[in-house]
């Protein structure tokens, strides 16, 4: 048991690709400094040392897809003073939430010859659907600079400075030419949460909303713009059903288009 006053950090994983916890190891210049300020008490991808809770800060990656994980997240919450969800899987159910729109048994048969060996829930859901969450950092993957900001804010006992406006604002701030206005490239930037630094427009590509919905997005207006540019209802169902398909605003608009299409 540590008697020092260094706060204890735990990193947890549920159904995910590991990319968001890797973001912490990708802080090549800051990792060793962070480890001076926080004791890495539980981070299985990086360490075989497992120090018992309670933990001051828990970072949770991944979505809830099994009965065991339902129990595990409750225990993690009980042991964590401050719990932060990192990434689209934890904040919205991730790409594996595409199962929520279909029959999971049929999915299982498509991948596994003996689907009865596979234990899984019918849905993939966010962490906040099951426990109280102190902060959500969106993105598929998260931005490592924003992760450092969240950790610093925790250490300094303040709110993280993570803007909730759209990718459009970041795109303008970066002085990029609007791909939708200038070249008619369909872009989801107007409804997507900022944080990536408007990386797609910088590479001459429309935003595909991997950071999930911004606060109060106008998905109807953007859908009409996409339709003017030639997108069908089917296309619109698909573009809102990717990495944040089960986030409330994207879920609603994709169902709207699906009903209209039928």
């Amino acid at each position: 048991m540590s008697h020092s006053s260094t706060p204890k950090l735990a990193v947890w994983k549920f159904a995910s690709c590991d990319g968001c916890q890797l973001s912490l190891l990708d802080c090549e210049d800051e990792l060793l400094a962070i480890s001076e300020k926080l004791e890495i008490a539980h981070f299985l991808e990086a360490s075989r040392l497992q120090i018992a809770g309670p933990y001051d800060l828990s970072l949770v990656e991944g979505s809830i897809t099994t009965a065991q994980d339902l129990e595990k997240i409750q225990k993690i919450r009980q042991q964590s003073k401050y719990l932060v969800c990192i990434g689209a899987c934890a904040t919205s159910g991730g790409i594996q939430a595409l199962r929520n729109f279909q029959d999971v048994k049929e999915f299982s048969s498509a991948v596994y010859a003996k689907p009865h060996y596979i234990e899984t829930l019918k849905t993939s859901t966010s962490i906040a659907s099951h426990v109280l969450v102190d902060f959500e950092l969106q993105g598929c993957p998260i931005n490592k600079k924003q992760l450092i900001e969240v950790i610093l804010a925790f250490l300094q006992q303040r709110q993280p400075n993570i803007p909730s406006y759209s990718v459009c604002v970041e795109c303008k701030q970066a002085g990029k030419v609007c791909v939708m206005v200038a070249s008619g490239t369909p872009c989801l930037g107007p409804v997507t949460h900022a944080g990536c630094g408007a990386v797609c427009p910088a590479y001459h590509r429309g935003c595909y909303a991997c950071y999930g919905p911004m606060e109060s997005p106008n998905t109807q207006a953007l859908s009409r713009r996409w339709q003017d540019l030639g997108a069908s209802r089917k296309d619109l169902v698909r573009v809102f059903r990717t990495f944040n398909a089960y986030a409330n605003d994207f879920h609603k608009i994709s169902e709207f288009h699906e009903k209209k299409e039928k």
Partner: protein
Amino acid sequence: MKKKKNKKKVRTIQVDYLARVEGEATLYIQLEDEKIREVKLKIFEPPRFFEAFLRGRNFAEAPDITARICGICPVAYQMSSVHAMENAFGVQVEGALRDLRRLIYCGEWIESHSLHIYMLHAPDFLGYPDAVRMAKDHPEIVKRGLGLKKVGNEIISLLGGREIHPINVKVGGFYRTPTRKELQVLLPSLEKAREAALETLHWAAQFDFPDFEQDYEFVALSHTEEYPFNEGRIISNRGLDISVEEFEDYFQEQQVEYSNALHCLLRGKPYFVGPMARFNLNFEKFSPVVQQAANSIGLLPGLKNPFKSILVRSLEVLHACEEALRIVQNYQEASSATIKISASAGKGYACTEAPRGLLYHRYHINSQELIEEAKIVPPTSQNQKIIEDDLFKLLEHSLHLEEEKLQEYCEHAVRNYDPCISCATHFLKLQVERK
């Protein structure tokens, strides 16, 4: 770790969570009268059903969707998927675009291998629980590893827009290609990285390697002129020589009750993919500088000790730095960021060399440009059976060890393969049952 005993002298050792691997799995070992009965690598990473939800998606979405299978090697998934689509449409990306694809793959090999060498594998050899705690005694070494990893990430970010799930790769090429000037920025870091890679190789060569060898069938891509990345025939040291299209005629996936990942076998037998397989089958394709570096530490093809895979990874980092330097220095801007794609109904196949080994993708595309069927075979599901075999052999000579040591030894042996369990489905748990 739990230990049980009963009248039949059953012994169970169980490690609930094996750390420093990418994903969630358990290792279960059952011993009866101190003889090994069963070794099972159980992957309990929750299934995510990628092959199922790829159906009905547009072909152009495959690189972005499949990248999300793995945050550690997203470029590998993007490379296999775009090459499979191009195969379906009968086109091939050449010249500068082909070179840029090799360059982004160099970035991923440098990033992923440096992560494994310094943060996941070296702590086993030096007796630390992790790299952060290793840094307390060896700060300069860990900083060198982080520095190397950073250079890999710099390449991916420059070409791909960001290091994890890059956004710039597409069927037919890229959304935007860099100017010559933009790419030249990488030269100073790559030159430093080449030095660091050489130092890494000599540093790792001093480790104490367990005396352990097995007679493996190694499988890797083989290209006529280059150390393989995106193209080639699938060959083995036992005479296999097939085209990528023939993959499923020779390799079969099997489902086992205890694992959420499928086991893949070659003609019904386990086989070995990854850096050691590439090294053993393609050594002569390395540049003279890389071959010389290997010779200087006595690392020669015919290598059968998986604990030495850390040396091969170090050598591949050196190769990737050299190759990246060559590409950046000779880069001539392409006239267009992408070649013309006329999507049509058909089947497409591709294998590329992910950091952890052969990654197979097959897609059926219909006349509406939608994916009808997808099949993905990641490297870790191919190595699963070999990992179990290694543990079986290893345990035969190690049962005298106390439980804690035995567990550490088993974990080390599993990490030899850098298993990426997120890919194969994901968390390792060691359970040994003794009868």
